[in-house]
């Protein structure tokens, strides 16, 4: 197993919770240094891994909350370089999986991008607009540098395709719980247990559930349904945005949401 995959596997197995907790952070929102402070607050509040989002101009898989945060991060000057630098600092505290759209990877070149992640201690990579069909060059670069390329599956993914995706999965499988973009949802549209069981049938790595999970009850329900990990995004980005707009401390605001989620996942 690669260095990145080993660190991710340990984060899942050592979590001590009913499911590993993986909060999302929009890097550079409201600015780079504050986002590093927010990451520290996540780690202190009990996060097991951290999904670090690179702001992108055209985030097709994201709903309005994350889209708006990305726009604000870019306006305040975030670059891929400054985000990766922040990633180095965060990875000293907690395992980091980078979430980035494909074009910034292609702009640097997959080889250079993967090498830089490895050198910075970033364990994994999630690319929401990189389906199996297009993943080969990036998977090869990640494998060569010991970075785990985490694939996504969705409720619309048929079984045979899930099997192929499962075979190339590194680190964990990111299961998109709903047919839709990121964003908070009041109820689960579909039954995550059935979906998770399908994914687990075809995967040898842990299976994490994300999209639409925003509170302790939903996180607990995900664990009940068999998720090995729970990913929470828009709820936390909203907490940061609200704190920024109200002049409050975004790190403590987002940290207390993570603490609540961690509580809900106590064994």
């Amino acid at each position, binding site marked *: 197993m690669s260095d990145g995959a080993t660190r991710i596997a340990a984060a899942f197995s050592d979590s001590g919770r009913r499911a590993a907790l993986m909060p999302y952070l929009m890097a550079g929102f409201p600015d780079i240094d504050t986002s590093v402070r927010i990451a520290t607050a996540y780690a202190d509040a009990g996060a097991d891994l951290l999904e670090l989002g690179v702001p992108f101009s055209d985030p097709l898989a994201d709903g309005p909350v994350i889209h708006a945060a990305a726009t604000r991060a870019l306006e305040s000057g975030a670059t891929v370089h400054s985000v990766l630098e922040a990633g180095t600092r965060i990875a000293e505290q907690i395992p980091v999986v980078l979430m980035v759209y494909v*074009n910034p990877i*292609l702009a640097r070149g997959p080889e250079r991008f993967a090498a830089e992640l490895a050198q910075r201690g970033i364990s994994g990579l999630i690319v929401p607009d990189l389906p199996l*069909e*297009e993943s080969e060059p990036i998977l090869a670069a990640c494998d060569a540098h010991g970075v785990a390329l985490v694939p996504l*599956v969705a409720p*619309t993914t048929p079984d045979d395709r899930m099997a192929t995706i499962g075979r190339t999965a590194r680190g964990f499988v990111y299961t998109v719980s709903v047919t839709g973009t990121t964003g908070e949802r009041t109820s689960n549209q579909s039954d995550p247990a059935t979906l998770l069981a399908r994914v687990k049938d075809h995967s040898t790595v842990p299976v994490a559930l994300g999209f639409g999970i925003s509170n302790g009850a939903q996180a607990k329900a995900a664990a009940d349904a068999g998720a090995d990990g729970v990913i929470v995004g828009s709820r936390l980005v909203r907490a940061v945005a609200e704190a920024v707009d109200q002049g409050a401390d975004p790190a403590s605001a987002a940290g207390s949401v993570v603490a609540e989620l961690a509580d809900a996942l106590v064994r």
Partner: protein
Amino acid sequence: MSAVEHRFGPYGGQYVPETLIPALVELEAAWVAAREDAGYRAELDALLNDYVGRPSPLYLASRLSEEAGHAVYLKREDLNHTGAHKINNALGQTLLAKRMGKTRIIAETGAGSHGVATATACALLGLECIVYMGTEDMRRQQPNVLRMELLGARVAPVDAGSRTLKEAVSATIRDWVSNVSDTHYVIGSCVGPAPFPALVRDLQRVIGDEARAQILEKTGRLPDRVIACVGGGSNAIGTFTGFVEDASVQLIGAEAAGEGIESGRHGAPLTVGGRGGVLHGSFSAIMQDEDGQILEAHSISAGLDYPGTGPEHAYLRDTGRAHYAGVTDGEALAAFKRLAELEGIIPALESAHAVAWVLAAGRETATEDTVDLICLSGRGDKDLAEALDKLGLTHE
């Protein structure tokens, strides 16, 4: 049965969220079946003839030719029902969606031409229709917003970013990700993930196929140059495809140079060159910064105000089979006015870019024997307020 192209050289592909992949697989299979199906073809051809008014005329524009110093023919897509080439694609895709059992149609629009065409097709076929449109474009193309609403479509305003076509496409893709089971996305140009670029080209090639037969019948020879404006590139690829095998015919794409290529405020990714990138699901020529962030385009014409382009055009450029050149806002405006004065034809501002190329760069490289064929992709009714204002021709 030949497959649908996913790549044109290195360009194309399917860079979309996993959720959409099964829908693209389904669409490709449906298209492969439909295009070989005599029933589908007959239904589409009947509509293209009796409803759209095809074949559209090929017109020798005598006074324009006189001004240019050589023969200029106009392929009159502006005379189509709804006023642009967009209806060819919209009817083909909505008929396909109906065969696939989809009940809900979504589309993006920039200039409003594609939105109106899709709303029209949905009215005709009894399908629900939602059209995403940037709020800046809703302002620039107000008459088309009202048309779409009258046709029963819902126009969904998009307020993100530059509030133009790029954001409208992104919003439509997000809707599709959320409603993919009952919804078909009628994409308006030869862009997006496979199979869309090939599908849209196949539906638009009627322009080039007709034009080739018409010019042979009228003149007994092929044109020297075929010129079309390029936003996403659908009227251009539809026209070029008819002539791409004819090595003697030069293919020229007129992109929006906006305020000038040097200003950075343009919509000319093919003309500028540079490395390729992914926008809206395919790898092609795009406007981007060093980090791979997509840049905002600028053009006076909403339909060319787009930082990407169809992957097949990027391939035609790299292989040298087609050439792409920029036309500024000012040149396009002047051609808009000149075509009205000389021929009594008010072109869409998009199409005016192609006319402007013939009157400027094209004139310099022509001899008196040169024969040009321009795809006049649409009419200018939608642009009147904006163009007259920019030309300083409004009444108090």
